[in-house]
């Protein structure tokens, strides 16, 4: 596992300061979406090997949700962004 994460607010920190909260790529359906869409979102998840976007909560630091893009095979970290920024970037697309 990637053991050092560079938080955009706090700097380089050990993984012990974080709590991993799951994949960041799946888009949350609208509240009125069909049950199938919600079922897919909640239960049917990929388990990819390789490059992967994930929510990391900086519990022991700034307490912000971050999106860490990393390779779960080689442990390489490609980038860390604040989840609010990630959300804005996604909405702009």
């Amino acid at each position, binding site marked *: 596992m990637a053991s050092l994460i560079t938080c955009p*607010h*706090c*700097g*380089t*920190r*050990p993984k*012990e*300061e974080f709590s991993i909260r799951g994949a960041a790529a799946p888009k949350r359906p609208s509240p009125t979406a069909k049950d199938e869409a919600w079922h897919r979102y909640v239960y049917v998840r990929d388990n990819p090997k390789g490059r992967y976007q994930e929510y990391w909560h900086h*519990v*022991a*630091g*700034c*307490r*912000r949700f971050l999106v860490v893009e990393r390779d779960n095979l080689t442990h390489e970290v490609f980038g860390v962004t*604040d989840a609010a920024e990630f959300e804005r970037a996604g909405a702009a697309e």
Partner: protein
Amino acid sequence: MSINLLHRHVLDDHISGFETDPNPNHLSVIRRPVIFSVLAHAGREAEVAEALWNAEDVAPRFCGPSEWLAVSRTVGAETVAGMLSAIAGASVVDQSDGRVLMEIFGPSVRKILSRCVAVDLHPEVFEEGQSAAMLCCHATANVARTGADTFEIIVPRSLAGSVFEELMEMGREHALTRGFAD
């Protein structure tokens, strides 16, 4: 010195502590600090930060992008409350009863703290005046560098006992002494 050591039991400092006078490496527990938590409303972060950094008699400590602690060892809670509530776009809460402030200093302070935090404390990376929330002795703490060899540590009240014990244990080989300070 060597004669002294012969007469000194290996567990002496465990039982009676080191000298009562502070050694060069010392941990001060501040008796009655004033600690406020300051939160900026959405979109007002920059102006609140600026007002905090310009405020007199309080030292701002960075916690997160819109969150700070304001610490004072010189003025009372009412004064600080009045001053902080004048900052537009911020919510403030008195945390003085819920937090414990400790100051650790001395020539070996970085060696001692390197066993307590997993953050690089080299002065070029963690500069004087810088502060951040981090794990310290397994507790969520706010650590600030207030001098070349001086750090302030703020921990939640309920964790202060275990953090204090661990700091003392890590500082033992550097003859870390401890005491209250005002």
